[in-house]
């Protein structure tokens, strides 16, 4: 019997270790995708709930072959199964759905999908971010205590231990260490949801560690920027670049011949502004070169087209050293702390498309626009990178919804919107009061909310005990005698969990 057939038989006979023994010894490139898939099945079956390593190994074997196994039920089911036991229920659901598409009506798959939907609906994460951090900080303190406080390198050790422990639990966080200033810097990455999580980590740092080092969220702006930036072993001279800043906060970067990769520009902007200011201002930029003046094309940006002479344009430009000041004079908000940035919100208007929960919204504000965008544009079984990352880290993203008396909106929309906002503010106050008693007000971040034709909404991120917050909300709605109230996580597939329904 061929090895692959033998492995299939062992797997069918639940002799999983034999599969592992037979296939693990083969070099990676000697295994076919089918063999990797059988080995992954064996890992999946050897893994116990709560035991992440075999499931991670299984995913490592399966995911590179996603295109190869396109449309293959077994492949999708195995991937989904790994994610399910890694408690990544959003991704598990996505792959179970693919498995169901490949084998319509399959009862096992449907059962697993229902399990996923229940998890995603309840919103109760297996281990919350606050629980993870409690353990992390405890372990860090325990380990630091082993070392002599009077040692010259004590702080260096403390910083290294902290960075390592945080990276163990949150491997996606990129950490920079500045020993001289005793600072651990968390890179903010490319989404504001990271800033919420990183600030929460920072806020939960025990007082006794605060004396040893600082935590900074977001790469800081640099004081001393050199003319040369090195990228992929190439040197790029940025001193020749010229920057135009428009009144509507767009930046045009000019070079006679533009041959600088965008990655270098990105690095330069981070060095000049720092990550948080970049996110907070979130400006657009364009590039221009001599050709745009000599022979403009449809790709030439409008700002450049407004100038007949290149010299006139250049007169309005500054070099990279003057960019920050120029940006400030044009209305960029600079020097914003991560905490301030989290409170910044923006408004949105939607075309109310139905009576279902959140489909009725016509106006809203949010401190986390990317989360709302992801929710609006996703299908019920889509991958949701922002939600999945929050969930992976033990953070629940969702919203409370509540409806007022029917007559309220009909009578006066201004009055109705005011009342929705009023209830929202009261609910925030009520929950924070209850959490205050537990000393846990930081366990929830309110993200603003929305107003729909049927319901009002209050959006949140929960980092700590979910039930503490839901109990408080339940009591509030009971006291207020609101006729319909509940919560839902930010996934189309999750159901509304009702506190009250008359």
């Amino acid at each position, binding site marked *: 019997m061929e090895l692959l057939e033998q492995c299939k038989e062992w797997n069918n006979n639940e002799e999983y270790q034999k599969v592992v023994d037979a296939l693990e010894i083969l070099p990676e490139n000697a295994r076919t995708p089918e063999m990797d898939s059988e080995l992954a099945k064996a890992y999946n079956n050897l893994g116990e709930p709560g035991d992440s390593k075999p499931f991670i190994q299984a995913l490592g074997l399966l995911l590179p072959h996603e295109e190869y196994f396109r449309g293959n039920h077994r492949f999708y089911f195995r991937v989904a199964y790994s994610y399910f036991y890694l408690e990544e229920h959003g991704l598990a659901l996505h792959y179970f759905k693919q498995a169901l598409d490949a084998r319509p009506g*399959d009862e096992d798959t449907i059962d697993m999908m229902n399990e996923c939907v229940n998890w995603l609906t309840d919103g109760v994460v297996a281990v919350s971010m606050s629980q993870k951090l409690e353990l992390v900080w405890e372990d860090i303190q325990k380990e630091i205590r082993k070392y002599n406080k009077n040692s010259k390198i004590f702080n260096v050790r403390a910083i290294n231990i902290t960075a390592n422990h945080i990276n163990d639990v949150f491997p996606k966080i990129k950490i920079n260490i500045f020993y001289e200033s005793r600072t651990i810097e968390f890179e903010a990455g*490319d989404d504001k949801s990271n800033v919420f999580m990183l600030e929460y980590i920072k806020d939960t740092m025990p007082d006794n560690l605060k004396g040893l080092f600082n935590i900074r969220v977001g790469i800081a702006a640099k004081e001393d920027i050199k003319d040369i930036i090195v990228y992929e072993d190439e040197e790029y001279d940025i001193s020749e670049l010229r920057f135009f800043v428009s009144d509507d906060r767009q930046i045009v970067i000019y070079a006679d011949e533009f041959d600088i990769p965008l990655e270098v520009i990105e690095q330069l902007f981070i060095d000049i502004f720092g990550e948080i200011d970049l996110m907070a201002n979130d400006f657009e930029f364009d590039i221009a070169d001599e050709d745009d003046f000599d022979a403009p094309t449809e790709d030439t940006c409008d700002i450049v087209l407004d100038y007949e002479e290149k010299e006139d344009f250049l007169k309005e430009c500054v070099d990279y050293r003057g960019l920050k000041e120029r940006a400030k004079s044009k209305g960029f908000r600079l020097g914003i702390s991560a905490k301030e940035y989290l409170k*910044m919100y923006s408004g949105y208007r*939607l075309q109310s498309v139905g009576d279902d929960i959140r489909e009725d919204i016509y106006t809203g504000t949010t401190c986390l*626009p990317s989360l709302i965008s992801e929710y609006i*544009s996703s299908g019920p079984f889509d991958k949701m990178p922002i939600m999945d990352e929050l969930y992976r880290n033990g953070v629940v993203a969702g919203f409370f919804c509540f409806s007022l008396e029917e007559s309220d909106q009909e009578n006066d929309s201004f009055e109705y919107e005011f009342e929705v906002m009023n209830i929202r503010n009261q609910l925030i106050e009520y929950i924070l009061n209850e959490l205050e008693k537990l000393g846990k007000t930081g366990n929830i971040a309110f993200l603003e909310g929305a107003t729909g034709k049927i319901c009002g909404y209050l959006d949140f991120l929960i980092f700590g005990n979910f039930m503490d917050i839901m109990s408080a909300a339940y009591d509030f709605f009971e006291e207020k005698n609101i006729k319909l109230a509940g919560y839902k996580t930010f996934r189309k597939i999750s159901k509304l969990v009702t506190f009250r329904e008359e």
Partner: protein
Amino acid sequence: MFNLFKKKQNEVKLPEVAPMELWEERSYMHVLSDKVDVEDIDGVKERIQAVDGVNLKEFNIKDDKSGNMILDYKGEEYGVGFYFEDFVFDRLYSLQKQKIHDEDFEKIEKKTNSFIIYMKFNKNYFDSYHLQLKLITAFFPDTLAVIDESAERLLSGRWVKLAAKSSVTPNAESLFTVQAVFDDETNKVWLHTHGMCRTGFSEFELLDISRDNANDLYYLINTVANRVLYQNEAIEDYIFLGEFIDGREIVVAPLPWNVAIAKYPSDIIGGPADRADSHNTNSQVIFLFLSEEDANNGKYTKPSDVEEKLVENPLYYYTNEQTEHMKFMSRDRYELLKKAISENPSYKALIKVGLPTDGEDGNPDYENLEHIWFELLEFTEEGFRAVLTQAPYRVAAMKEGDEGEYTVNDVTDWVIYTDEMSIDPNTAYLL
């Protein structure tokens, strides 16, 4: 404009690209037949088990005669679902149609019930599609017509039966259609495909084409879709599709529809207004790179800007896979050609033969064949005798009017001219 982050950080972005519909992601087909009318699927399990190459592993059916099955076919496992549903004839008017025999069409008009069979294609989508047709004929040997909902096309039951029993899979053009939407005011056309998404690739589109040139530019979009399907490879950045008459290469570089429409005036047909409810999922609009410099600088040219070049006898490359497929199908259905000519001596037939070209060493080069049309004179015991209709470019010893005898193994394509129409191997069901 560039943004440092892949998305705006401080604005709620309303969705442009919508999730695919079920009938886009999967292959949905609606079957019409007399037995469908009475929901008679007795003996279907046995018929499916008897389909060549199929290993039926599970067959589940509910009281309402909906159900699903799991089967192996050519080494791959498939899951297939099915159910009966009311049928409304009106819908057919919006579909592309194969040539349907008049007597069949009269029956189709009266149908009120359909049988829906759906499945997800895997990477071997030619086999997947072929399997779906085989299952249809196993469910309903009396299939009258099939509506390929994913490609928005009405298939003749006769074609379905011919394709199902053929040893060669249907060709790439069976998997998709190219539709044209006209704007009478501007005289412009929007060409777009349907059916590609189920193969795992995107649909393709051409925007803002002049009505006068639509027929010529059809070949551009058709060739792009064929290329992707035969090579089983999505277009990463661009592909070399052929040559303009001046010898310059035709380089196709598609862009996602939501990016592409920003490069056109907003009021064109196929513009934002036409994307609210449909054509807003997985679709790419075809652009061109006119030079290497354009490719390096990401300078996209609208095909509508170079229409005059695109209609002036461009040469589109066929892939080896496409040529091979054509060859296998023409040989597989060679007997139909033979029978049709024998029974209808008035029909004319052309047969394409692959001739070995002159090698550099003076010997015939059997690796590089020149495919050239011969007019059929007669069938012989060994094969057929035919006369060359044009002078070959790379076979010096042959000229127009030369006669020769060839076998089925030399055939790479054929076409029959009846009094009313031309019939090729793919449309041999019309014979």
